[in-house]
């Protein structure tokens, strides 16, 4: 299979690559959001620790 055949997926490339692409994009966004939530929570812990001193 050459590169062009690989990307065209027998003329169904749109459906195949949209599926894989949508999942990849969604997982990247979820990872970013969850990382942000983690840092915000760590910041909250820091703020509370500082104010209680």
């Amino acid at each position, binding site marked *: 299979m050459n590169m062009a055949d690989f990307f065209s997926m027998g003329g169904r490339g749109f459906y195949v690559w949209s*599926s894989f692409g949508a999942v990849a994009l969604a997982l990247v966004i979820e990872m970013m959001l969850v990382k942000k939530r983690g840092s915000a929570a760590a910041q*909250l*812990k820091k703020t509370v620790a500082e104010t209680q001193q």
Partner: protein
Amino acid sequence: MNLYKYASPATFYPLAGKLIPWFAALAVVFGLIGLYLGLIVAPEDAQQGQVYRIIFIHVPTAWVGMVVYLVMAAYGVAALTLKTRLSSMMMEALAPTGALFTALALLTGALWGKPTWGTYWIWDARMTSTLILLFLYVGYIALIHAIEDKKRADKAGALLVIVGSVNVPIIYFSVRWWNTLHQGASVSVTGSKMAAVMAQGMLVMALACWMYAIAVVLVRVRAIILERQYKGANDMVGLSMGARGMAGTEMTGTEMMGTK
């Protein structure tokens, strides 16, 4: 080993932190092998041609969507009976990932349906019950955020998830119980109807999705543990600072809270 020890958020927090990089690394390794098997090694399907390759992402996302819900229901039972605090936190951490995978299963299914069935969507039993699963996830998330008292919110959420779990076997057996447009199971406990390399690709991709889901849920549950522990404290700090600021009016903290 005392499993109860790890049911405490304080001991689970560092353990989860240690496990995250391992699950993340495994997700990458399985993902690369799975994509290689599914997109390059596996041959073209005799009936569907190349478009069948959506199976390598569609089935794993659907499995994660269903099983995460069952795991949530199990934690729900633990939350209501054993009253372990971590259980409710785990439920809260699992829900967004479960909802996301269910939505992705529906989306990739639609993208597969169009070229093979001629339609993105049909009210077929498998698809409708999967859509209900998505609504159950969204309902749970909305419910726990709508109730201010965290303990009551956790209880109500656990109850909703447990009752809703009846939907999972309906999804799974829908292709047998009803005459659906959706095809039957390709892989089951008793064996596989697919070529070996196709089944292997699908299973490795499923493992990748699992490792990813566990890693991301562990990151989220760590955030939730901190949020629950410190949000109350932060509010109290804010309150006492507010009370100090009003010292001139001789108003105490208890008066501010209306418990005089």
